[in-house]
């Protein structure tokens, strides 16, 4: 058996592929819910209710999608250029550290200045956190998968040290958390009295901005060229190193924004459990969105629905919350397979 590239893709094929991958995932999830001893119909209803049932649950879904859009964009931008940034988790925490350092009283501006200022510093610090890795790769051929992945642990240990030591909030009753961000720096809520904050709108704006950069600017053009074929890019006079640095700045910076958004928008202060692996889930978000910035919005919201909905479902009908992970994972698998089948057809052995 082997794969053969399709010369022409029928127009109906992508739709059938996406629909059937959704269907396969639903069937798979239904089986698992049944194995857990509950009715799939009730299960799916509870999942839907948990994610969309009320103003609060919709807001909760949006709030969960926010960091995923940021980290999904960070991964999508880097992966598009074949720069394997696995370190969005660390860059998110660096962004959060920047928001905490500058946002807890070191400087005080009016909210109109303070919020953009915190976002900008978060972006810059996130970008700086990824910069050494891209330089190491371009100049010394150090594999970025290793450096970005391992840096996550270094950064999380740094955060842990700061929260247990110098940055520990004296009023936190002994909890390892930093002082809260001052009022001027807090991202306002979009829906009052819910957890949905301005970060969600910023994330969506960033996605459109990235889409514009990638499709309409010379930097986006170069970064796509470098991603597809660095050798041809080089032969066309495009500086691969400069382009990769640009990609790293954008990718790390947007991951840093996720940290600012979580600290200044959702929680109000930095804790060690600020991110339950948003950086890693971002990779799944990017893959599911086919590395397209607008696709990232949809896939982040989808994964947020599954997580929030599955949480509600497990509380209502007592199935394990791990079902959410299984559903997300099987969706990614089926979508990836369907993306391959859109581009290739399967040839059975003996026929070729």
């Amino acid at each position, binding site marked *: 058996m082997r794969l053969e590239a399709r*010369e022409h893709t029928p127009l109906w094929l992508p739709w059938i592929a996406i629909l059937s991958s959704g269907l396969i995932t639903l069937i798979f999830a239904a089986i698992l819910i049944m194995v857990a001893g509950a009715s799939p119909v009730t299960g799916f209803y509870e999942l839907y209710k948990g994610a969309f049932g009320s103003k609060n649950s919709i807001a909760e879904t949006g709030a969960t999608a926010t960091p995923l859009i940021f980290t999904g964009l960070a991964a999508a931008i880097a992966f598009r250029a074949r720069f394997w940034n696995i370190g969005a988790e660390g860059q998110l925490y660096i962004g959060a550290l920047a928001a905490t350092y500058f946002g807890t009283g070191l400087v005080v501006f009016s909210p109109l200045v303070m919020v953009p200022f915190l976002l900008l510093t978060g972006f810059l610090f996130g970008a700086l956190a990824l910069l050494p890795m891209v330089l190491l790769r371009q100049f010394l051929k150090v594999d970025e998968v290793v450096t970005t992945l391992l840096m996550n642990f270094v950064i999380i240990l740094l955060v842990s040290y700061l929260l247990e030591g110098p940055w520990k909030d004296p009023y936190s009753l002994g909890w390892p958390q930093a002082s809260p961000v001052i009022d001027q720096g807090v991202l306002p809520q979009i829906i009052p009295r819910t957890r949905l904050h301005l970060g969600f709108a910023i994330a969506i704006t960033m996605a459109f901005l990235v889409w514009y950069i990638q499709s*309409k*600017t010379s930097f986006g053009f170069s970064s796509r*060229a470098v991603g597809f*074929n660095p*050798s*041809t890019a080089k032969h*066309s*006079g495009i500086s691969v190193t400069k382009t990769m640095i640009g990609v790293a700045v954008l990718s790390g910076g947007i991951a840093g924004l996720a940290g600012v958004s979580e600290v200044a928008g959702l929680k109000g202060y930095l804790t060690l459990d600020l991110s339950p692996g948003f950086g890693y889930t971002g990779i799944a978000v990017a893959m599911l969105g086919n590395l397209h910035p607008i696709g990232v919005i949809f896939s982040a919201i989808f994964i947020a629905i599954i997580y929030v909905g599955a949480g509600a479902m497990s509380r209502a009908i007592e199935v394990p919350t791990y079902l959410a992970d299984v559903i997300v994972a099987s969706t990614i698998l089926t979508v990836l397979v369907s993306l391959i089948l859109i581009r290739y057809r399967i040839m059975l052995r003996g026929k070729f």
Partner: protein
Amino acid sequence: MTALLNVKNIDKSFGRLNANKNISFDVASGEIVAILGENGAGKTTLMNIIFGHYVADSGLINFNGNELKAGDTKAAIDAGIGMVHQHFTLAENLTVLENILVGTQPLYQPRLSERKAKEKLKYLAAEFGLELSPQQLVRNLSVGEKQRLEILKTLFGDCKLLILDEPTASLTPQEVKTLFISIRKMVASGLGVILISHKLNEILEISNRIIVLRSGEVVGKVKTKNADKTQLGEMIVGRKINRPIRKENSFKEARIQLFQLSTKSGNGLAALKNVDLEVRGGEIIGVAGVAGNGQKALAEVLTGHNKPNSGKIFVNGKNLFGKTPSDFMNSGVAYIPEDRNADGIIGDMSVWENIILTESKNLKFFNKKGILNIKNSHELANSVCQKNDVRCQSIEQSARLLSGGNIQKLLIGKWLERKPSVIVACQPSRGLDEGAISAVHKTLLSERKKSTAIILISEDLDELLLLADKIVVLFNGKLSQFIENSNLNPNKLGLMMAGDGF
């Protein structure tokens, strides 16, 4: 004479493409049958069917009196069919002897029975003039020696029919001669040989019979002694070949100059040693040489991709030592790389995007803020495709779907839009069909007329003789003296390519 191999009514399609249509022929013991045809004529598909890599849609193959099992390479080898592919299939880190023994001995046997093998190897080598030291590491062998080893491998397996796919592609004229002597000896001992090639002169010299394939069909079967070169050429292409002619031209001032230029080896590139080169406007300098003697290093030095460590390099009077590829481009250098799919185009991007790849800093296509101007880009793409006869369904089509000839025309066409004063072209016609080859040659000659300086690096001597005003030979990173095209002696050139006079 009974037929050793009998191929009957072979059909094979890949999707909509008919690679082989109702092909029948036979080969007897003791004869050399040449299969001629352009790239894509179906030669390699046919051989792969005989050798069991592919299964034919219909048809029969009889070998040595028995039907050959379809799609079973091992059955083909066991029956006595040996194939030497154009790209060698040797383990570089093993010795000559070990390469021969691989696959011939059972895996569970703890020791290789080397002694007997060595004796047999010695005998074969002496018998057929294929001398090789059994203990030598394959990575230290020259291309010609590697090919000898490939042939020895098949002979060691007692093959009765030897298939040679483009055996002379990267050999010097002298190596071709010794190869032909060996082939004649093998045939005399009763072997059947199928020779796949597109080099007419060689085929006429060595074969007994010629079979011509065109778009998957047999369009001619002739005895070599009755064959006529022009007629064969037209049979291969299917129409009259219209070769461009190089006319007298006046030369302008030097456009690109290298003085005592040296580079380090590395990244798979050979080192250049004290290279001097000067190309004037309106002049084509041909660089001859066997692959791997520094061709790529030279091309990359001339285009800024390979940084020299000593010497001087001037483009239009400007010192560009140590500058980047984009500085070279901005000084008017265009580069047609050898591997157009890997270095020339981006298959996943559309035709128009490929055409503006070199223009990411051109204000006409990306304004001061770096925003793409789609209208101008599409206009340029359409005009490049039209002027250079690039056939594509639309400029939105992925470049990967274009044929090799169209890719090359696109590539050259888009570089010409930059109005280069120097063109560095590496193997510009390799792998193209006759129509595309003559289009490429015409373009290069018309650029020459426009006073562009052209460096043509090619392993194809016919191409160099057709286009170049002067020829230099590259051997082991060193350049020879210039030889005027008019007083060129192919025999002497061959000796120089093998290192004579360096």
